[in-house]
């Protein structure tokens, strides 16, 4: 009993610590860059803004919104990844690997090319639609056959659906070169150069999905102990899975609409969290949210310095960070919860 208590207090201390880590990376993201800005100027910019000071303008128009977007997207992707890994019982599950990013992106490119859609609210709904269709397709294809959902099958299905949407996107962009310039941003994935207005329409969906995910932790624990066990405990497993699916679509689709295709955050973070704090989903989800935000903020800061004076697209940064990780998991074998 005592050890349980200490384990719990260990987690509470850790979550406070993780929160401070998040605040720290957030401040890093605001202060560092091509023009380093000291912390007191940052507070000045927020609390007594003066439009004649360049640093104040940089903070309010670019740094702050960038950091906020990175934080929100990072936690959404990480929660989406954690839920996907639970839902498919596959350690390689993540929005990008299962074709959700590519699907959302393809739908956005189609709407830009053929229907000249240009409002963010529309992008968002289109991205939700694309994420839902591609995610559903991958899940369906991965669970075909008599032994149901198998990790290898679903990874292959994800690769196929990704290849499908990527090649269609490329085809469209070759035909429509002007479109290419305007969507390159999404293709690479970026949190830079977006005003906070871009985030606002998506934010309610992401926040409510995140909150539901927080409360779902206990049910996911039961689900992870096996379908039969869960059913005998009176859980409506179908309902839980459907809710998880909808949360994933809101989180992953919303992220693509705001910041394009940012890979591997959803893969790496849940693994880190499970490694550090065990496999209790009531804790995995909040930890994933905090760690996801911190990791994406850090990646974004690094992206500003790797090839100064240019900026590396953040999606590339995360992919380069994530590939070794992917290889490590693939080598270890596709078993979850160990």
């Amino acid at each position: 009993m005592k050890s349980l208590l200490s384990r719990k207090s260990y987690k509470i201390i850790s979550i406070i610590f993780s929160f401070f880590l998040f605040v720290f990376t957030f401040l890093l993201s605001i202060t560092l860059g091509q023009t380093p800005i000291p912390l007191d100027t940052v507070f000045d910019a927020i609390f007594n803004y003066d439009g004649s000071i360049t640093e104040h303008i940089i903070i309010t128009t670019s740094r702050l919104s960038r950091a906020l977007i990175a934080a929100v997207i990072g936690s959404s992707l990480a929660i989406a990844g954690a839920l996907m890994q639970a839902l498919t019982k596959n350690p390689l599950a993540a929005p990008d690997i299962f074709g959700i990013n590519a699907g959302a992106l393809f739908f956005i490119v189609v709407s830009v090319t053929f229907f000249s859609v240009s409002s963010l609210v529309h992008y968002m709904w289109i991205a939700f639609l694309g994420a839902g269709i591609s995610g559903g397709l991958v899940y369906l294809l991965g669970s075909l056959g008599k032994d149901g959902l198998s990790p290898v099958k679903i990874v292959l299905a994800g690769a196929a659906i990704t290849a499908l949407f990527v090649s269609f996107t490329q085809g469209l962009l070759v035909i429509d070169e002007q479109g290419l310039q305007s969507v390159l941003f999404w293709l690479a994935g970026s949190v830079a150069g977006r005003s906070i207005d871009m985030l606002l329409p998506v934010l309610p969906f992401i926040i409510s999905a995140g909150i539901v995910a927080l409360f779902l932790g206990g049910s996911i624990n039961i689900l992870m102990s096996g379908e039969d066990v869960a059913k005998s405990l009176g859980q409506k497993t179908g309902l839980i899975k459907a809710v998880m699916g909808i949360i994933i679509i809101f989180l992953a689709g919303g992220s693509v609409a705001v910041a394009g295709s940012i890979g591997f955050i959803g893969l790496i973070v849940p693994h880190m969290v499970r490694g550090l704090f065990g496999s209790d989903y009531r804790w995995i989800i909040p930890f994933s949210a905090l760690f996801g935000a911190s990791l994406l903020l850090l990646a974004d800061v690094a992206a500003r310095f790797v090839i100064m004076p240019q900026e590396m697209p953040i999606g590339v940064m995360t992919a380069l960070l994530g590939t070794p990780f992917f290889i490590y998991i693939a080598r270890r074998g596709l078993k979850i919860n160990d």
Partner: protein
Amino acid sequence: MTKLSSIKNKSKSNQLNKKSLVTFLILFLFSLLLILLCLSVGSSFIHPFNVINHLIGSGTGEYDFVINTLRLPRVSLGFMVGAALGVSGLILQGIIRNPLASPDIIGITGGASVGAIIFIVSFMGTVSVQWLPLAALLGAAIVAVFTYAMSWKDGVTPIRLVLIGIGVAAAMNALTTMMIVLSDTYSTSTAYLWLTGSLYAAKWQDVNSMLPWIVIFIPLTLLFSRIVNVKQLGDDIATALGVRVQLYRMLLLFISVALAGSAVAYAGGIGFVGLIAPHIARMIANRSFAVLVPITALIGGIIVVLADLVARTAFLPLDIPAGVFTSGIGAPFFIYLLYKNRNM
């Protein structure tokens, strides 16, 4: 009794060979007809009889430019590229023993693309464009070696190779995107056109430098065919039968990379041919690898030439990259394969 059954077997295998030969000849004739069609159709139509007249040298020479300079190199290159991709996929599916393997899915094409894009973005203009294929091949080889090394853990299992290939392919995608985003507008669209896979503006020079790859590596594949047949039974059986599994897997992988890499080098990422061609071949021919190699080569060639024909004539005057069409057919086919192999 044994004698009798061996005679029976022999006559059966003769029958099989005859059947394969007929299939091969039919495909061959079909390819010739298709090439003829490609030479006559386009923004200006040339009557097939005039094309034949021109080819055998009894024409008036008025079609010299359209046929010799524009259409013939394009069709030849397309056919060779398709053959190379098809055989490359056939080998991969054989050694990985997974019908879903293909050079695009496990990142070989991606590696070649990164090599080529780096070349387009950083050296185009300063170094002659004829070195582009070398860059692409180098990229393909590096990725293949890397993927293979990463999959090694007391030997390489097919599933691990595919999974790690998928991860590496994702990294290659990221690198390509990075190069494209960081380059200026002109190289962006050049790079993008190349990425999608196009036979636009193929030259005799390309045809001549692609030819050796086909002539060397496809016959070499035939030489290994017996080993692949044994290996398809599984690693344990193959080892028991005395096949040095890892060594041959590496050699075959090397051939596959050389074929896919050269194809990507000359025509860009024409997707899914390496996946579809072997499957169609298996549907119409028997499962012996030696028979499948030439038939897959022909089918791969037919697919690419056909896709290119549609791509350059359907939306005149637009010349759409052939890769768009091969992907349009290939990706649904892949999904069908997943469905068909659902109990695997």
